[in-house]
């Protein structure tokens, strides 16, 4: 099949150059070129991330100094913060939109959208995605959903504020919270469009990986990045439609008087007619997406990190097959663990036991991956580029955040830490911070590929990394403690009754670290914007990497390779491979063998 695709691609190549008169609009706006779409995803994702992080700073300040007034609140929040005092309802809105933006818009679209688009065609040796047109539609739907999400911030009664999990009845009834009016409608519309975008993207990625691999690129020769994007896309296709169904039912409950999730409700002085629905049903549907979603976020980061770590260690990734197997195992398990978000939702305790079992099983492939990354470093020749630092940082936060998952996944222990700050600390480390490190690692590593050999400034990168990792630990380590003190999350203030008064200083420490960490992101932002046009140009293959994208033209042309598509003869991890008599590298003086180099005579053949 891949051979056929290759021929086809070559035909395509022959007539390229004749009819590609690109206008500004087709090149920069409605582009069907995967490289441009990838940049569009990245920049939109970073923009949304800027909003999301800014929101977190506002509510962190509120938590640290609940009885102080800040003019910045009034400037940014307007009527919801008159006199610089934050309104409780806008606090909930900030928390909700922060979660939504970070999970979906930054870590799903910004991470997987950017790098799947950039790397799938380039690393498998294809001229573009299977359908450039669908790819373009996918981005513009994402853009539209971002617009709706941002617009929802400006509606009269405020944006959605029922938490990013939008559990009904709170999210279904405007009487229950003002944000469940027009704000919630826009939220649902935005998410519905987002799901459509994500499905179009995912189908495209799957088809491309299956059909458009170049000659010789067998599945076991795929770089781990591609494996990760491929499996992520599969999970997305399996689980996102379920969220769409939940969203549709919620829309009907809200607007057309159905009772999917509502029953026996007395609110604002009257009984609602709804009967027979169950909020627990919504929780099942939501988490059937919601849990795979965290793997949709983390798997691409894992793929990027595996690739970057091997390249910068100048070593093959340790246990390639085990890495692939654990990606598949994680993907499979991720679809049967959603109930661990619902141990105390009122579902049958026996179900809780089953979900505890499946959940703790996920620790096994995760442990295998962590050990394999650590072994990849062992006896390497580590090139400490910023991307490598972020990759090592990823493993660090994945371990520290992942280990506390053993507590939360255990139903008996979950009883007392459920919905406390312990959970917040756990998932921020393991999926928030880790996935962001993956994103940053990817940006530092593939920036030259995106911007025609321009490179990010490495010293700013070092500052960015070290301040971020210290700051992030400073935020989330102490947060475990206030969680174990029993502090519930989503409290507008913790000092309304005296029991948690002694947590005030922890909250101040967390907020100060959060402010410092956010400031470090400005360094990155400056570096990014500046280097897009003024970055120093590096060599064609700056990291001496084996994968095919570095053999493609530096200048972005439609079709990626000016000549024929390279043929693949080996896997992508032949770093520091010695010749048979172990006198030198296979290619003398060069410690890497790109995938398109044929096997040498004095080289031992691997099983790839």
């Amino acid at each position, binding site marked *: 099949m891949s051979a056929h695709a290759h021929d086809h691609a070559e035909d395509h190549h022959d007539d390229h150059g004749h009819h590609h008169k690109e206008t500004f609009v087709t090149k920069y706006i409605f582009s069907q070129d995967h490289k441009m779409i990838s940049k569009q995803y990245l920049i939109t994702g970073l923009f949304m991330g800027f909003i999301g992080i800014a929101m977190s700073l506002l509510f962190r300040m509120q938590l640290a100094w609940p009885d102080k007034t800040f003019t910045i609140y009034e400037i940014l929040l307007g009527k919801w913060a008159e006199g610089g005092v934050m309104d409780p309802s806008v606090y*909930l809105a900030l928390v909700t939109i922060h979660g939504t933006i970070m999970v979906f818009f930054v870590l799903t679209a910004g991470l997987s959208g950017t790098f799947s688009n950039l790397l799938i065609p380039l690393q498998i040796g294809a001229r573009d995605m299977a359908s450039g047109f669908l790819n373009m539609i996918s981005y513009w739907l994402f853009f539209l959903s971002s617009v709706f999400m941002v617009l929802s911030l400006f509606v009269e009664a405020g944006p959605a504020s029922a938490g990013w999990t939008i559990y009904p*009845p*709170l999210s279904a*009834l405007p009487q229950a919270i*003002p944000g469940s009016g027009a704000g919630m409608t826009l939220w649902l519309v935005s998410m519905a469009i987002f799901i459509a975008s994500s499905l179009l993207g995912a189908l495209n990625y799957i088809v491309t990986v299956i059909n458009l691999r170049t000659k010789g690129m067998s599945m076991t020769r795929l770089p781990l990045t591609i494996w990760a994007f491929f499996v992520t896309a599969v999970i997305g296709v399996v689980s996102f439609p379920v969220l769409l169904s939940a969203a549709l039912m919620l829309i009907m409950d809200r607007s057309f008087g159905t009772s999917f999730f*509502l*029953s026996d*409700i*007395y*609110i604002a002085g009257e*009984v609602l007619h709804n009967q*027979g*629905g169950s909020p627990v049903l919504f929780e099942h549907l939501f988490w059937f997406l919601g849990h795979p979603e965290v793997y949709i976020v983390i798997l691409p980061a894992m793929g990027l990190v595996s690739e970057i770590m091997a390249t910068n*260690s100048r*070593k093959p*990734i*340790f*246990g390639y097959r085990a890495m692939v197997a654990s990606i598949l195992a994680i993907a499979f398990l991720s679809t049967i663990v959603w109930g661990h978000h619902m141990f105390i939702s*009122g579902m049958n*305790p026996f179900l809780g*036991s089953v979900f505890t*079992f499946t959940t703790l099983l996920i*620790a096994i492939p995760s*442990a295998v991956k962590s*050990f394999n990354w650590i072994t990849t*470093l062992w006896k390497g*020749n*580590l*090139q*400490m*580029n910023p991307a490598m630092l972020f990759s090592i940082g990823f493993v*660090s936060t994945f371990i520290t955040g992942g*280990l*506390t998952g053993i*507590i939360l996944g255990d139903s*008996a222990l979950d*009883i*007392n830490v*459920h*919905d406390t700050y312990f959970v917040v600390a756990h998932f921020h480390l393991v999926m928030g911070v880790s996935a962001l490190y993956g994103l940053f690692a990817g940006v530092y590593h593939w920036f030259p590929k995106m911007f025609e050999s321009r*490179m990010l400034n*490495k010293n700013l990168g*070092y500052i960015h990394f070290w301040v971020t990792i*210290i700051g992030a*630990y*400073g935020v989330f380590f102490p947060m475990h*403690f*206030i969680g*174990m*003190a*029993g502090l519930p999350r*989503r409290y507008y203030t*913790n000092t309304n*009754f005296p*029991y948690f*008064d*002694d947590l005030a200083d922890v909250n101040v420490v967390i907020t100060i670290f959060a402010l410092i960490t956010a400031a470090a992101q400005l360094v990155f932002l400056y570096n990014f914007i500046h280097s897009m046009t003024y970055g*120093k140009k*590096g060599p064609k293959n700056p990291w001496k990497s084996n994968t095919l994208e570095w053999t493609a033209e530096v200048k972005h042309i439609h079709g990626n390779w000016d000549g024929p598509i390279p043929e693949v003869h080996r896997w992508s991890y032949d770093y520091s491979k010695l010749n048979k008599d172990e006198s030198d590298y296979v290619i003398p003086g060069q*410690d890497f063998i790109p995938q398109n180099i044929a096997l040498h005579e004095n080289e031992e053949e691997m099983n790839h």
Partner: protein
Amino acid sequence: MTAFLVVLVIILFGVAVWQMDKIFQMSKPKVDENSEIASDKDNNINGYLMLGLAFFTYLLLIFCFWKWGDVLLPKAASEHGGGIDNLMLITMILIFVVGFITLWLLSFFAFKYRGKKKNRALFFADNDKLEFIWTIIPVIVLAGLIIYGLFTWTDIMNVDTDDDPMVVELYAYQFNWRARYSGNDNTLGEANVRLIEGVNQLGVDVSDPNAQDDIIVTELHLPIGRKVLFKMRSQDVLHSAYMPHFRAQMNCVPGMITQFAFTPSITTAEMRLDEEIVGKVQRINKIRRDKSLELTAKGEEALEPYEFDFLLLCNKICGTNHYNMQMKIIVESQEDYEVWLATQPTFAEVIKK
């Protein structure tokens, strides 16, 4: 005018910096194209910093324990709570051991194998034995944890009616709690939000004979040593009945009745004498005294000194006042409990009024 001048100065300053930057750029010799790729010097510095990262995480953790170890929840005040705390301790020890070792290996390898031009990495792609070892060890350890966890969970969640637990309803609404005791018959009267009317705030069925002796209160009193079976209901949106000191939590779901049972094992009075609690109350009162000084200086009323009480908190986002949805829980001797309960009117008495 001043504003204009300020803006002008800022702009000119910006232009000056930009121009200077340009001059510096131009005065520098042409750099080689590898300048943004890590050099041996970068590898060296970052290698050392990576080693420092391990120590930083350890020290941060130790610091957190030293500084904030005392904010953690005190000992469990329920019988099953000990089991949860034990499991938590075992899991925590495991986590610390694994975390300590893996973070050390990560940082140490990053330091030890930091790149040098003359070094050569080892081509080491696979080792079935190693991979088998670190697959099987987590399998065994997790199997143990899962089994222990499941036994603990089943013990807590499967309520044995042979224990003859006292049935109490916890009723959640925006933004407060009510408790309904089932009275002498230990059976709650039927209730539905559709029956809410006037003083019958919980929608209890007036015609149900079981409902007549029900007692609705705003403060939860529990006798020590008696198993209590809580039946949770919600009037409007999802709430969660979280009683951290008893290691107990269950969501309150509109349209269904959820349950959770535990046996209180320490009275409020005993808990107030507990060393940890005494320390905590002292710290909180010190904070409150300092705050009171500020308040009185401004001519406002001083804060009352704090006294420890068990709490029932709402732990599921439920609306604007979510942060203040709580109820006091008092655990006392059977006698004190009965005396208190006798002073509370039954449902029949309330309705008659």
